[in-house]
């Protein structure tokens, strides 16, 4: 099923966005996020972007104060996911204009909308930025 979850976490380890593509209950989520965040945040720039954790492989990327962590299973192409993160960031950039942690934090719903357009059921569904952003624009027009 490819992507299992997408997490955005800041340097302090606070979750800014969490989207799961398999159902985990709250306990499991809390434990998983804690462990993964601890593992990934401790890593240096010189280390690779892949961390193995339980049955996941976490592909992560850091942008300023924000970490993007994507949990995938073994059938996923790591580099493609790494660039998927970048695509997500570029899409957010296009919408917010030089996106920062606060944009995501205060526009949680928009971040969710974008992700929803890009990933469905753990598969990448759309990679064209225009298409990804069209529902948001639609809504902004409506309101």
């Amino acid at each position, binding site marked *: 099923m490819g992507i299992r979850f997408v997490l955005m976490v800041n340097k302090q380890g606070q979750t800014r966005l969490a989207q799961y593509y398999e159902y985990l209950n709250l306990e499991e989520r809390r434990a998983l996020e804690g462990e993964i965040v601890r593992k990934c945040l401790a890593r240096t720039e010189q280390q690779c*972007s892949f961390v193995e954790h339980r049955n996941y492989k976490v592909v992560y990327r850091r942008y300023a104060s924000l970490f993007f962590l994507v949990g995938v299973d073994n059938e996923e192409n*790591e580099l493609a996911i790494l*660039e*998927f993160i*970048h695509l997500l960031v570029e899409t957010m950039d296009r919408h917010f204009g030089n996106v920062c942690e606060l944009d995501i934090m205060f526009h*949680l719903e928009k971040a969710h909308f974008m992700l929803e357009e890009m990933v469905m*059921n753990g598969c990448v*569904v759309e990679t064209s*930025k225009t298409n990804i952003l069209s529902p948001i624009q639609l809504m902004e027009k409506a309101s």
Partner: protein
Amino acid sequence: MALSGMRGLSVFISDIRNCQNKEQERLRVDKELGNGLTPYEKKKYVWKMLYIYMLGYDVDFGHMEAVSLISAPKYPEKQVGYIVTSCLLNENHDFLRLAINTVRNDIIGRNETFQCLALTLVGNIGGREFAESLAPDVQKLLISSSCRPLVRKKAALCLLCLYRKNPDVVNVDGWSDRMAQLLDERDFGVLTSCVSLLVALVSNNHEAYWSCLPKCVKILERLARNQDIPQEYTYYGIPSPWLQNVPFVVVLIMELKLLSSSRGQVSYVISSTTKVKHWKPVVVVGCGKDIDEGWYGVTGLQRVKTMRALQYFPTVEDPNTRRSLFEVLQRILMGTDVVKNVNKNNASHAVLFEALALVMHLDAEKEMMSQCVALLGKFIAVREPNIRYLGLENMTRMLMVTDVHDIIKRHQAQIITSLKDPDISIRRRALDLLYGMCDVSNAKDIVEELLQYLSTADFAMREELSLKAAILAEKFAPDLSWYVDVILQLIDKAGDFVSDDIWFRVVQFVTNNEDLQPYAALKAREYLDRPAIHETMMKVSAYILGEYSHLLSRRPGCSPKEIFSLIHEKLPTVSTSTIPILLSTYAKILMHTQPPDQELQSHVWAIFRKYESCIDAEIQQRAVEYHALSMKGAAVMDILAEMPKFPERQSSLIKKAADSEADTAEQSAIKLRAQQQNSNALVVTDQRPANGTPPVGQLGLVKVPSTSTAGQDQSTAEQGVTHANGALTVVDPQPSSTPSPDLLGDLLSPLAIEGPPGTGPQSVPSVASVSEGGVNADALAIAPVEEQAKTVQPIGNIAERFHALCLKDSGVLYEDPYIQIGIKAEWRAHHGRLVLFLGNKNTAPLMSVQAKILPPSNLKVELSLVPETIPPRAQVQCPLEVINLHPSRDLAVLDFSYKFGTQLVNVKLRLPAVFNKYFQPITVSPEEFFPQWRSLSGPPLKLQEVVRGVRPMLLAEMATLFDGLRIMVCPGLDPNANNLVASTTFYSESTRAMLCLIRIETDPADRTQLRMTVASGDPTLTFELKEFIKEQLVSIPIPHQAPAPMLPQSQPMSPPTAISDPGALLAGLL
């Protein structure tokens, strides 16, 4: 005021009080309850809820609000409702049901944006009810020409989710053509989704989708040539890597599937969610449990073999498709350059790695293959950590798929450097790769590298590392002393991470190889010199020195006394689990000291005395027993002699790895390793030539003379020691049966954990073998005399009927369309009186009826005359007298024949005049039991055996079984609740009434093994009884699926009721 603490409440109450009418009151209450929220407010609260949930607080209210928003008419509210619902709820949530109708209306409605939202929700959550009610609609949307791509891409993934979760509900018959059409799609969003869907469909049924293969290759071609790719879908100049990767996967699945089916192999349980990369990562997965159960249905070996075989298999058959595919691959392999832009570089390499994965499995030319290895070799040396990581990962995969060992070995030094990388992810990959590439030629280097790394490795990796090192050392040891060195170093450096299995294994090796014993003892002695050693090391060295320190006694510093004090000074530092081993060591050292050393003896005895009152039962017991034994002096030397050789067996490590339920990463790798062929360096060979340099790969265990009885396999030495000293079961050797003074070869030593293989008759009488078999054996017992007689088939399962009759005294012995033979028996002491009821079921007489008894030597059987004809629908009775002469499990056989018309039917039936029929249950009190038990002090009157492969049953079940066998279970005699003590009296002419005592010790952790001690006053009886009980425990007649018995009257074990009375049965027939 009384409510001073709750102003808000007072305000609310006064508000209500001030309301003019009912309507105002209702509005106020609604406001308080939040019912009057505007859609805007609702939306706001629902987002807040999601935010709170994301922070990790449990939100168990408000779900209803989120779901209710789904039915809001406006897009913004609806969208929130859908998104939050899919975040908060799972498919089993009750609230979801409330929304099904709205969701369906949205999907079949005209509003595209609503359709998208609804499809996304269903695609993310799935659920059977959704699948049942929505799948046809979703399918229609996907292929509808009037739908915009926007909707269709979502429909594709929605269908994928429904299909994955409930493939039985979604009807995809005839979808191959549709999928082929969909692959021509121009829109990249739809194409991306459709290819994902295709992966799932192909995994479930590849044959149907064969026509999609050329289309996939076409897509790849188009992408690789960068032809006709919309700007929006290129990423840093690379055509969407996310789309590019998927067709590779499809092709790969096709390949593997094709292979598996055309080879006629077991079809792979590849579930719909499994993409092909799953086939490789057995070795590389860095993760724990695989979610996909089906994946583990295929053994690693099979997978690897399949992939190897793939190289010799004509794969993509259409030459044009094949040429295009190879062109694409070649273009990617050659044309991927390292560029400055990180994103572009990553994107192009993402595609490259996917291409590599495919090449590995394709029937590629040698040249292309070596290109791949060269690329990977380059990757593992670059500075960029991601590429290095993936290089290592893919090299491990490649290793498992193709024969590139030798080329990869050239990179060994580079890989070892990666083992010291600061990044744990890379170190893990390097470790896996080293583990995978290890063979006899480089084992020494690699294992030593691992050992060296062990001291600096982080804790997270140590256990994995030590297990891998131990396995490699065992598999590829160039010589045994090296193996011992490695394991001891392993324990020394990472004792906490070395599981018991590892040290048990080294003890086994040492025990089984005489040449190794002095060396191991010397090594153990060296480690003991160190000021602080790990407890596991203490256990191994104490054990080895206890067994073999006398081999060193001539060396300086190795006298028994010195060794003893060396060990004993560590005693205060060890835990209670180690003390018993030390006590055994002391006892053994003491015994080996010749001539006896008075000082040492008094010292050791003092220790024993001290521990005789120890609170730990194990320690106390050993202290008491060793003390008592050692006081007997030389007479009991044998008991403390060296342990006999262990029966050869699979490595417990590898077995453990293979059996283990927990599929952590390393274990799945180990599993694969265990299943690989030709990797066994420690081949079990015959006694190796003394001092000779044995050829590499041929080294190893001295073959132990295989013992006759199965199930003596004692899992560990430690266990053996423990058991051998069980309270009731210390078996003193009979002076007469004490064999040769050659202690080393003394397998019959009473301390041997196996039952003495030599005692008792070994040749199993031929008839008895019939009784051991299940259906097959019995099928043989029915031997039709003539061709045409074959048409007469017995009704019901003869074996089952027989086994049932072993436990009860009346029932049907045999039945076919013409005759039914019932039996009724009475037993008194060693006499039995059986009556055979021969019932003719037909309207024609049965002619030439003959019954003969073929008695074994132990029974005297007299059958009264059998009439030659049985009239139609009549029953005749034939009494049968049985006298049991002496104990034996042999059976009497009834040779029965008759003629029906021209058909001659002849059957040979075992008579249920079995061993246990001569039992008379008897209760014994402890006052009677214990003296008797003690007086029957050892072989051949008292026999003990560890039985393996026992049908697992609870103690209560076993008691019931014994009860059925007329053996009386005596509760309360054994203090241990896991044990069972039983008694019975056996009658035969030679033995008369003979008391038999039985003790079963079960292991609650492993119900398939137990230890059985049987005692009686007659050696043959003891042996026979032991074997008999063993048969009952091991091969209990499992209720076989009888070939549809016409009359279900003979239910094994069921208490006989009226219908099992043959008379009544026949009466019913008449």
